[in-house]
């Protein structure tokens, strides 16, 4: 045992000296190990700081109070330790909780401070917007922590208010008057308050928020809530509060929860471990580890080769293969330890630097700076593992090297193994099988799809050596620099293979994700159902709304817009709720509608363009309406359903439900009908009635919506929304813009391309510059036989090209395997059809563009001075 440790001690000492002696190489290794550790460590620090948990979160919820007690609306409830997670109502009758009930449970000496938080509206410069208003005794010490005053002072009277910066940006600021609106059953109450301070809410950063003294903006609608002062509120207290219909978030219970056995059985959560998340985590970790190992691999291979002569001499004087192996592995240990520690420390620093930027992107306030040491230890261990794994293959090659060949100064390696490509192909086949099995129509299996990704990439890694040898063999007729690069790559496989494999794995990952994203987007586009004609905007209006006011608002922002009133049957009238059934042979026709026009039944003598009917259908519908026929609109989903056959004659039956909800038949009339396809899957309205039919049925008819002809620019919409919100009885403006690919997809594709580029550049650069330093004697020879200085650049660019192109060409097809496997469940439609949308431009960029770009960059950056044969010996 001690002998073994002793062996390691020598190996580690050698490795440490070697690391110091070859500083540039060591820095390269360190960078490769350090960077991923650094990135993850920085992310972990930001994440932990952004994540407000435990005592921090409690302060934000209840200030300095011992508990936040709230009424439930009934007389008995159950809750988990945190009432925000699981609750249950046991009582049947309605009940409004009182302070006395709280005191009866917790003791009469406790301080209770009412706290209400609700969304009201306020007047902004452009119209109105939501405002999160906190009503509480702002001077009471129990409320400390709910708000943070940045300017001015807290309100002292009910006529004063503090707002946060987000609210002040859009509306009145410090010293001005703000109007806050509460809408209730009996209309809207408007309160004007003076802004005396700017205070940030502990809960939101980017949404408008404000705080006032109790009663300043009327009585809250919600159940009453109190901040409870005094000693800790125990779990038993919480249970006692539950028994009288009160929920309680207790500081003591939340900070130090009792064992789960204390919970009522209904309140125990059985959240299943999310299989997909775990699988994704395992897959990502494995792939990152693999990528780091492959990227760092060439550096370790070169170091092992630099030591080859020493190791051969050791072997010649009786050293064992194990000793040789250990010497190389020790390099991994030294670099891994150093890289891990350095990466974590730099990551903490980077996290601290990134914090302000991250805060700007986040809607909630971050907590104090936090360093998750345990997590960082795991990350550092990851760095160590990556370095040791990267040194593994060079270590084994070193222990098996041909001593005679090394001592004779022959460079290069033996033939590639015959077994590994076979095993590689078997793994790739297994990856295909796993992908097919995991993405079948029977249901997707994330572990099988993940296995497909891992198996095929590992398979590819095993095939690389053979591919490189093959490229060396076919290089015969290639230009000199490329031929030299290809042959040299084939001769130094321990150096080239991991670099090419790293590029291949990167490309495979990019292709996989690219196919998945693209296919999902294609499926979304396929499944997209427009609400009405493309480019139109629609604002629904209630009977009390003033359509001309809407016109004025629209005209103010969009002077050129054509606004058309849509007339329809008002379902909600004084008589009750009106529905019209269209019957054929006594049976109601079932029609689905989106209700986009504020009514199910349009009334008019022609079809409005906004319905989006195709021209033929619209012409048919127009002439039908002119003849006094009812036009029935049917979406493709209705067509597929029952009663799809064309209908000639229907009986329109008016049903009015009274307040009890019991429908009674009203007027009914037999009318000729024409059925036209609505264009989309679901029709925007069920029917268009000629005005005389509507009159015959005695329906309440009026404007139900306004259609704005194309096109409302996206930039104007926010303004219009805020302005329309001030008009009573006016809905929001919906503009049919067709399928809009999620911005995140495009951003993700960019991120993928850039990440792919960075990793490819990393892999290519390491391999190229290691190769160049290895090729010094060859370059010197070339110089002696008359090579131009730029030959070195050409050789460098060719190296990059060989590494990048071979990697990309191997990786791209491999990426298709998990890519298709992922895209199948993502794109499966209702009919079971799947889509495969290959992002060809992304593929072209990654497979052709990036290698060429990298080669060009390397060619430009490489020194053009050729080494000289210092002494021709």
């Amino acid at each position, binding site marked *: 045992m001690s002998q073994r440790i002793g062996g390691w001690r020598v190996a580690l000492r050698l490795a440490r000296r070697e690391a110091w002696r070859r500083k540039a190489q060591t820095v390269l290794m360190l960078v490769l190990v350090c960077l991923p550790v650094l990135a993850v460590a920085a992310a972990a620090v930001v994440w932990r700081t952004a994540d407000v948990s435990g005592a921090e979160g409690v302060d934000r919820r209840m200030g300095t109070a011992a508990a936040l007690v709230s009424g439930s609306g009934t007389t008995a409830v159950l809750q988990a330790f945190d009432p925000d997670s699981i609750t249950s109502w046991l009582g049947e009758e309605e009940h409004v909780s009182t302070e006395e009930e709280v005191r009866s449970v917790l003791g009469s000496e406790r301080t209770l401070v009412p706290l209400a938080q609700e969304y009201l509206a306020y007047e902004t410069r452009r119209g109105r917007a939501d405002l999160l208003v906190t009503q509480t005794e702002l001077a009471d010490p129990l409320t400390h922590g709910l708000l943070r005053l940045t300017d001015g002072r807290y309100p002292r009277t009910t006529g004063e208010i503090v707002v946060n910066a987000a609210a002040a940006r859009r509306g009145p600021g410090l010293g001005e008057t703000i109007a806050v609106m509460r809408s209730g059953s009996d209309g809207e109450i408007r309160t004007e308050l003076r802004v005396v301070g700017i205070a940030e809410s502990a809960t939101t950063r980017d949404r408008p928020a404000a705080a006032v003294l109790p009663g300043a903006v009327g009585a809250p609608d919600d159940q009453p809530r109190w901040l409870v002062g005094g000693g800790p509120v125990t779990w038993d207290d919480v249970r006692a509060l539950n028994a009288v219909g009160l929920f309680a978030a207790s500081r003591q219970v939340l900070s130090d929860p009792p064992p789960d056995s204390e919970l009522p059985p209904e309140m125990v959560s059985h959240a299943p471990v999310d299989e997909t998340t775990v699988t994704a985590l395992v897959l990502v970790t494995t792939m990152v580890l693999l990528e780091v190992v492959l990227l760092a691999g060439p550096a370790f291979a070169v170091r092992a080769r630099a030591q080859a002569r020493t190791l051969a001499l050791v072997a010649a004087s009786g050293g064992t293969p194990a000793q040789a192996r250990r010497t190389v592995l020790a390099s991994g240990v030294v670099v891994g330890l150093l890289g891990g520690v350095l990466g974590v420390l730099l990551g903490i620093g980077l996290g601290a630097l990134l914090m302000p930027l991250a805060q700007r992107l986040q809607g909630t306030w971050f907590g104090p700076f936090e360093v998750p040491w345990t997590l960082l230890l795991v990350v550092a261990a990851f760095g160590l593992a990556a370095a040791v794994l990267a040194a593994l293959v060079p270590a084994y090659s070193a222990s098996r090297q041909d001593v005679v060949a090394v001592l004779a100064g*022959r*460079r*290069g390696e033996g033939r590639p193994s015959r077994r590994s490509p076979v095993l590689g192909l078997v793994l790739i086949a297994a990856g295909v099988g796993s992908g097919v099995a995991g993405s079948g129509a029977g249901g997707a299996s994330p572990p099988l799809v993940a296995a497909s990704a891992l198996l095929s990439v590992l398979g590819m890694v095993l095939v690389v050596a053979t591919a490189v040898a093959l490229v060396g063999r076919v290089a015969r*007729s290639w*230009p*000199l620099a490329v*031929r*030299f690069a290809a*042959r*040299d790559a084939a*001769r130094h496989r321990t150096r080239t293979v991991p670099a090419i494999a790293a590029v291949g794995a990167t490309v495979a990952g990019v292709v996989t994700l690219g196919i998945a994203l693209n296919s999902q987007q294609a499926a979304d586009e396929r499944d997209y159902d427009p609400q009405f004609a493309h480019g139109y905007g629609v604002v629904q209006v209630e009977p009390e709304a003033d359509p001309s006011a809407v016109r004025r608002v629209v005209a103010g922002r969009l002077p050129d817009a054509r606004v058309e009133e849509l007339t329809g049957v008002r379902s909600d009238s004084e008589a009750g709720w009106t529905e019209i059934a269209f019957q054929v042979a006594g049976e109601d026709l079932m029609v689905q509608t989106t209700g986009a026009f504020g009514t199910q039944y349009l009334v008019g003598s022609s079809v409005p363009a906004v319905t989006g009917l195709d021209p033929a259908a619209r012409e048919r519908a127009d002439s039908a309406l002119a003849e006094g026929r009812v036009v029935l609109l049917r979406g493709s989903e209705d067509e597929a359903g029952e009663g799809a056959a064309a209908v000639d004659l229907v009986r329109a039956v008016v049903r009015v439900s009274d307040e009890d909800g019991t429908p009674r038949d009203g007027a009914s009339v037999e009318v000729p009908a024409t059925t036209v396809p609505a264009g989309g899957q679901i029709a925007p309205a069920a029917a268009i009635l000629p005005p005389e039919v509507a009159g015959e049925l005695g329906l309440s008819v009026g404007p139900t919506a306004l259609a704005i002809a194309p096109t409302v620019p996206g930039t104007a919409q926010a303004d219009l929304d805020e302005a329309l919100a001030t008009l009573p009885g006016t809905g929001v403006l919906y503009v049919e813009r067709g399928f809009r690919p999620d911005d995140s997809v495009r951003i993700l594709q960019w991120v993928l391309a850039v990440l792919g580029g960075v990793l490819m550049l990393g892999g290519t650069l390491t391999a190229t510059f290691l190769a160049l330093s290895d090729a010094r*004697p*060859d370059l*010197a*020879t*070339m*110089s*002696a*036989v*008359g*090579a*131009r*200085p730029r*030959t070195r650049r050409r050789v460098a660019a060719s190296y990059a090209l060989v590494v990048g192109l071979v990697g990309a060409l191997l990786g791209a097809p491999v990426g298709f395997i998990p890519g298709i496997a992922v895209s199948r469940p993502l794109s499966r439609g209702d009919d079971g059809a799947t889509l495969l949308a290959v992002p060809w431009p992304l593929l072209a960029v990654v497979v052709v563009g990036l290698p060429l770009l990298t080669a060009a960059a390397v060619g430009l950056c490489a020194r053009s001075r050729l080494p*000289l*044969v210092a*002494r*021709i*010996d």
Partner: protein
Amino acid sequence: MNPVLKLTDVTRIHGEAPHEVLALRGISFEAHPGELVAVMGPSGSGKSTLLTIAGGLDRPTAGSVTVEGTDLAGLGQHGRARMRRTSIGYVFQGFNLIPALTAAENVALPRELDGVAPRRARAEARKALEEVGIADLADRFPDDMSGGQQQRVAIARAVVGERRLILADEPTGALDTETGEGILQLLRARCDAGAAGVLVTHEARHAAWADRVVFLRDGVVVDETGADRVDVLTGPGAR
């Protein structure tokens, strides 16, 4: 007859004062077509410096170097590289073949570097390999050849493309006697065919293949006894 190589008052100082080393001090030297000149002298006498300067790999501190009438000092890096591709061939003790290239490709290297189409360059290389007697090894890689074979490839590389100046630095140093004799025979043959050869060696019996022997000591040319300095040692048949 014009000399292929002409060194006039060449001085080469390595390093800077006070640590400067005078490798060559005012050497004048000529090699004519069809002539093989042996340069002999003890270690550190400046033999190798002489060769690197003659081949344009290094530049003299003072003096001029002319190859086939072109002054190397007047050429830039590119021009000197071009001279090495077209006029000057090197043969090294360590062969200095590129292991990633086959024998034919190694020989074709200067031609390809000169922009000759690979197919034509390879054809010329095969011819050159034929002339050194190893045409059958054209597609072998250097690691799969013996030392003598590798040196023949190196000589083929030095002469391919009708280059008229061959600079050989201890070409037999890494070979056994018999193989070494073969290599020298080959060099002699190339010179007899019209090239000018400069052979750096420290073995007297190799000098026997030369038309003329130049002795160097401490950076100056001395006479055969090694005692007196010889200022001018030019002209054929001065042996």
